[in-house]
């Protein structure tokens, strides 16, 4: 029984919440706005919020001068590639642990999680030296391998928590009705598993896209994704605010949109099912 909320209180809460939300979002908004300014207007004092000459020239300059498309493609290949390979390896594992749990299942799951706690800096040197010796340094393949491995525990865990929710009774009912194992998988299990797999994929692409330890340390000119491209603006070039903003906006826009769609899965995926 919810009591009637007074309109006054609702108005107050709305105003406070919107103001704080706006404040937290402001740096992103400011970046997007600045990307449409000229360099002179970007550092104008007083700064202008909306009433400036809107221009898209910064986007053109950034793309032309820095071969933006190549960095973008590296990000796409690395994040999507590592996610897909991770899923191929993880789906069978999560599947069998959820449906055919054995005595050791819990220990295996916990152990997998523990590999995620290994601080990357603890294995930086060996990975760097191995990659250098086998020619994987600064290659997309090398980064796909590393990101697949560091995100594999998260993928398995997320899938496991989703698969765990598929009722086993349904399988038995299908079997009673004479469904073969093949039909059972195609018509009964897959439709129920797809949403979980899709959310896992989305969250993992986001994590891989924003990963900024390995992508910065293992790449130079060839395989550098957007994280490294933006890091190159830490030189005095970053003082060209409008161009920095245009580059930043292009780097975060796709993932920001994906992120908003996956906000519910985020809690689940990153807390390993501990908070639902």
């Amino acid at each position, binding site marked *: *029984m919810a009591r009637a*909320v007074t309109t006054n*209180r609702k108005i107050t809460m*709305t105003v*406070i*919440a*919107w103001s*704080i*939300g706006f404040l*937290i*979002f402001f*740096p*992103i908004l*400011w970046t997007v706005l600045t990307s449409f300014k000229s360099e002179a207007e970007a*550092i104008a004092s007083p*700064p202008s919020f909306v009433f400036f000459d809107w221009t898209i020239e910064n986007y053109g300059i950034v793309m032309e001068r820095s071969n933006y498309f190549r960095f973008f493609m590296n990000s796409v290949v690395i994040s999507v590639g590592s996610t897909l390979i991770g899923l191929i390896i*993880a789906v069978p*594992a999560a599947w*069998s642990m959820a*449906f*055919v*749990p054995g005595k050791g299942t*819990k220990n*295996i799951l*916990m152990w997998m*999680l*523990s*590999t995620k*706690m*290994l*601080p990357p*800096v*603890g*294995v*930086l*040197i*060996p990975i760097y*030296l*191995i990659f250098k010796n086998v020619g994987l340094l600064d290659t997309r393949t090398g980064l796909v391998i590393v990101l697949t*491995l560091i995100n594999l525990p998260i993928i398995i865990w997320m899938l496991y928590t989703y698969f765990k929710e598929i009722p*086993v009774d349904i399988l*038995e009912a299908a079997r009673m009705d004479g469904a073969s194992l093949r039909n059972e998988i195609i018509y009964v299990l897959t439709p129920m598993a797809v949403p979980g797999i899709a959310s896992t994929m989305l969250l993992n692409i986001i994590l891989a896209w924003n990963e*900024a330890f390995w992508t*910065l340390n293992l790449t130079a000119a060839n395989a550098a994704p957007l*994280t*490294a491209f*933006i*890091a190159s603006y*830490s030189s005095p070039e970053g003082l060209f*605010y409008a161009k*920095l903003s245009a580059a930043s906006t292009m780097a*975060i826009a796709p*993932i920001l949109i994906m*992120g908003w769609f996956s*906000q519910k899965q*985020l*809690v689940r995926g*990153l807390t390993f099912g*501990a*908070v639902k």
Partner: protein
Amino acid sequence: MSTQHSRSAARLMISPSVILLLAWMIIPLSLTLYFSFLRYNLLMPGANPFVGFENYTYFLTDPAFFSALTNTLVLVGGVLIITIVGGVLLALLLDQPMWGQGIVRILVIAPFFVMPTVSALVWKNMFMNPVNGLFAYMAKFLGLQPFDFLAHAPLASIILIVSWQWLPFATLILLTAMQSLDSERMEAAEMDGAGPLARFFYMVVPHLSRAITVVILIQTIFLLSVFAEILVTTNGGPGTSSTNLTYLVYAQSLLNFDVGGGSAGGVVAIILANIVAIFLMRMIGKNLDA
């Protein structure tokens, strides 16, 4: 449904994951451990003699190590306090009836999806820059002297940037937990005369304690490894005033090419992270039984 047959099939399905993760753990870890006992510098090719604990003595007695350790603790602690206090308040706020709750939520969680290099550079240049940054403009507008954040308060500035990135995570998790709070019990408590503060401390906080623990543990794992934010804003400086353990090991190994010393630092970082990990694993393990 678990016949002998399906069991062996299950084992076959798990094995690729297990083998890969095992290799990923054991090979680099044993190499790090091995290198940490060698005098091994990439700039000085030749024999890499075994030197026992020399690298550890060197790394642990380096004044930079002590300051990096302190900075790591201050960074992790500072961000945790800000994000949890802020997160609880924001979650309380977002749980109130209002118009456009979904939109506010989208605004609040947005920073989490911004890649670390972007957020660090945007804050560094467009907000904290002492000449053209927005903060400098605001200071001048109020008649104050612009403050050079990253030069004079580098660690605090990095804490601010990282907190902005992680506040959404804490908020989202605490909000999820808060929404499972039984509203009838809250109303019953209110009828019995419990004031808002009493309800907050005796009902909301205990209910959130589990979610808060999860936030602390997970954020700690990630915060111990903060790297990109430091690299693009201060490079660990001025001096070592914003160098954390991760950055120190990186500098030792990839900037000074000291494989031995860097590896010793890596082992120290692993030990510290493990202390946190043990607590986190216990929490999650308990939940797995339930």
